[in-house]
């Protein structure tokens, strides 16, 4: 037997096999996630240059108004294998960032705020292990000099997890997600994205698949990055409708004689259709007694609920459109109830909101110094890459089709050639994701960053001229 075959432990069958098939098999990489895969990914595919460009916000240019210390004041933190957590990493250049990631091979990269001063000082002393054995060396930092160390900028971020919707879905629970419940994320993207653009006037918004069970949102406009904590909390509260905790049966409470225009728009443009055309049937919301009781609980009128309950219990034959039929009955009865009027009609909206409205992890958004996982990381549990999602066609996004680490490595092996672009990712299925990131997000962002730098520089020059002439 030829030597190489002994080494590879293959049997004879494959040698005789079809050559193409053989190559495919040779290149296929077993599913999974491990440090070796990750090393290869960081070595060949991870788009360092784009991440650097993004987080520099135009300050890496040659314009005299550029702040060259900007990127270096940004906190990164790495979660290594074995839960070792390295906070306060900072890098001055794209290559420093690249070398550190390649060397440390972090399982997770988090992005924190931009600080007032270079955070290099704490870097050597803030090696925290989750086991807490590490003594605090903050004291060392405290003697480090006159630096005042406070966060000054951070993207406005949102984190939405499907596991927070467990009482609104029946297909999966916990961290699991499937195509039946993923539309809940689509709804969240549509509602929040529209409001961020139309209401708050932001335009540089990046949505990212979190790799497993949800989505992240990065609002990158200069104005958003400089919001203080109170303003961040105000935006989160503006979005907050869902108030469910474990001790309250009514998860959504829409009070007042009318709804705020933001809620009306969300309802008519997104929630209602998704509820009636998708979730009602896909989640079988009225399928059996247990499920429809949960909905009847939200109607405060005993006569209405008992009438509906009676009708549904007596008519148990399971039909394809049972959910739609029951929903229609419920709506008709609530709408026709003239005396009770608006209070009952509001119930319809409350039910729809309960099963569709976005549920944000509020704490993540409220504080400038909260860290969030970087785009293009790989989720250790799923092996999937945290790819950007285009909000314009987010309904087409399929989490189960997101490239996995092993798939990408396989493609690299198969390709063996470079794509037309400058990087290895170009030939892989990550190519489209990076291209989207560049063309639909980064280019526009950098254009307005340049304008902003130009404007503030001119204003500064003007100001100093004035003070001189005075």
């Amino acid at each position, binding site marked *: 037997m030829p030597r190489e075959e002994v080494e590879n432990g293959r049997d004879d069958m494959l040698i005789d096999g079809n050559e193409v098939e053989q190559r495919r098999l040779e290149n296929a990489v077993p599913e999974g996630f491990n440090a070796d895969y990750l090393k290869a990914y960081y070595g060949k595919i991870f788009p360092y240059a784009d991440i650097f460009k993004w987080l520099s916000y135009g300050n890496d240019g040659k314009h005299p108004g550029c702040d060259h210390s900007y990127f270096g004041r940004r906190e990164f933190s790495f979660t290594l294998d074995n839960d070792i957590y390295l906070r306060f990493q900072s890098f001055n250049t794209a290559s420093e960032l690249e070398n550190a990631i390649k060397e440390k091979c972090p399982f997770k990269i988090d992005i924190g705020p931009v600080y007032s001063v270079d955070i290099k000082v704490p870097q050597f002393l803030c090696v925290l292990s989750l086991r*807490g054995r590490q003594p*605090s060396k903050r004291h060392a930092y405290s003697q480090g000099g006159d630096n005042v160390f406070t966060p000054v900028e951070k993207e406005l971020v949102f984190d939405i997890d499907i596991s927070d919707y467990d009482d609104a879905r029946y297909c999966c629970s916990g961290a699991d997600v499937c195509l039946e419940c993923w539309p809940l994320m689509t709804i969240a993207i549509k509602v929040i994205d529209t409001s961020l653009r139309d209401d708050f006037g*932001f335009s540089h918004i990046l949505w990212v698949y979190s790799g497993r069970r949800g989505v992240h949102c990065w609002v990158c406009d200069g104005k958003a990055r400089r919001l203080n904590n109170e303003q961040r909390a105000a935006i989160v509260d503006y979005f907050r409708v869902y108030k469910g905790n*474990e*001790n*309250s049966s009514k998860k959504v409470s829409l009070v*007042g*004689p009318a709804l*705020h225009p933001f809620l*009306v728009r969300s309802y008519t443009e997104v929630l209602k259709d998704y509820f009636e055309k998708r979730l009602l049937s896909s989640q079988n919301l009225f399928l059996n007694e247990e499920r429809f009781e949960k909905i009847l609980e939200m109607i405060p009128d005993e006569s209405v609920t008992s009438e509906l309950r009676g009708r549904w219990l007596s008519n148990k034959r399971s039909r394809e459109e049972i959910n739609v039929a029951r929903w229609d009955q419920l709506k008709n009865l609530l709408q026709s109830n003239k005396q009770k009027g608006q209070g009952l009609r509001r119930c319809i909206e409350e039910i729809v909101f309960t099963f569709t409205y976005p549920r944000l992890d509020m704490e993540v958004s409220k504080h400038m110094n909260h860290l969030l996982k970087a785009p293009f990381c790989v989720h250790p549990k799923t092996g999937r890459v945290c790819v950007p999602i285009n909000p314009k066609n987010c309904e087409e996004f399929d989490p189960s089709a997101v490239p996995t680490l092993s798939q990408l490595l396989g493609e690299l092996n198969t390709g063996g050639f470079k794509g037309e672009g400058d990087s290895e990712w170009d030939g892989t299925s990550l190519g489209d994701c990076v291209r989207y990131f560049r063309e639909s997000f980064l280019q526009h962002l950098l254009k307005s960053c340049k304008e902003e730098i130009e404007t503030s520089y001119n204003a500064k020059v003007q100001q100093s001229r004035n003070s001189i002439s005075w």
Partner: protein
Amino acid sequence: MEAVRSRRKSLVSTGVGSTLPLYRSAPPLEVRLEDFELYAIDRLRVLKGISDALSRGKKPDEMEKLVLDLWKTNMRHQHSSELLNKDIISHFVLRLVYCRTEELRKWFLSIETTLFRYRFRDEPSEIQRALMAEFDLPYKAVTTAEYESVKEKLNQVARAIGQPITTDAIYYKVPFEEVPELVAGRRVFIQKGNAYIAMNQSDLFPTVPIPVLAVSHSRNQIQAEYDEFLRYQASKQTSPQVASVTQPNVHVADNTYACVSQSSTLGSWVMDSGASDHISGGFTSYHAVSESSFESTSADKQKFQFTDFRKWTSMIREQEKDRLVPIIEALSTSYLGPDYSQSREHAEISLKDIDQIAKSSFPLCMRHLFEKLREDHHLKHGGRMQLGLFLKGVGLKLDDALAFWRAEFSRKVGAERFDKEYAYSIRHNYGKEGKRTDYTPYSCQKIISSTPGVGDHHGCPYRHFSEENLRTALTRMRVGNRALEDVIDKVRNRHYQLACTLTFEAVHGSSCDAGVNHPNQYYNDSQRILESQWAHGFSHYTSCLSMYLIFAVNQLSEEFQQPKRNNSFNVGQYRRVASLV
């Protein structure tokens, strides 16, 4: 020494003949030692009165009278010319005292905002207008054409927040960041980053956008001061003895800084207004830090100023040891209210008592968390923080706390995972990890404003429970029928702390005059009552409790004849009482 020289400047004019100052900058005047303290205390009386009234659920019209009366009674001065000075000085002294922590700052801001609102409303309309002009708000009125295009939306918001729809209103466009309160409550229409605010809404209480708006300016200022304070906190670590806070005037570039320094060993404040020159330079360079083109020069300047400044503050602290320091210490301790980060003297609880104490003396929010923990052997982060810090305040020592949480969590996630993932944050709460802050237990205000989500059990039951669940919980606490209806009534009117106070009174059969402001205060008051009932025998005790309890106690009384069979809790209680008496 020159720290407090008796140099008087004329009144800071508001320019409009109003008695309502805008507190835009610290006063360029020096303060006499006794005024410094007395003014601040007088103002604190006003703020405390407002705060108490709010937590007791006073209605807007009652509040109006109360606030103005409080003001008139406490903020008098024998020379009418000094009234404005007193107002301004006291405001700034308290502002400095209260920027210590975010919690205090929030309290101070919200009460000052309320005060400002009522005083603003009390001014005649031409003064109001003049004040508005004084603010010089850079906002544009919405043109008629634009108004027409958004009219429907504006009316929709008006209906949503229950305000009459007005057709002749003048709307102003304000960047949404300037009115966070209105944004948070969805009480304003926002489009492309601008909030639309009607000017004539100002005379509608309690949705008074104008004062909110006006106040938002000084709020931002205080926020900025607070940020500066944090920076100094950071820089404090560079010099072990002394840190300092100054008042940067964010909007007006003049040199009127007051200076307060804090000695980190005493935790108290020293004020000095003669030192402005030293600090103002330091501050200017601070703002330049973020502007790269000036960075190199500012760095040198900064360093120089700081050495200079440090020398000065350390001197002052030494010199003022006997004069200003005690005053400030008194100000910041006796009037700020306790933060319950340290448990009461001698009050330690041991693990074996904890179940019984939870039943007898925990407020509902903590009792609920405690029971859920026992039941599920798990609590999510918000619950762990709320209960964990409370227990710390109650007197549970770190080792006991670790044992307590481990015992529960290990049944759910295993001891190993507990040690790996959860123990750290418990040590952290006790100031043994991370930045080593000794965290303070959550106040009612903080708990009420929390936002429990799926799977969460923290928060204020009176606010976050459904009525049905709340009724069940209260019944389990043996709150009688009539009291229960009273509690629910308060809840419906959103007086959550008042509801808790009524619960306390119902459970303890004893009045709670101060109201409930802090779960640990609830606990301490409860323990005090139980102790005194112990000390005075059962006569008082029984007369205060419901028939059911009398029966129960009588049944138990036989057991009390045999002290050996008593559980340790009662013995411990008794010992504590003895030490008190």
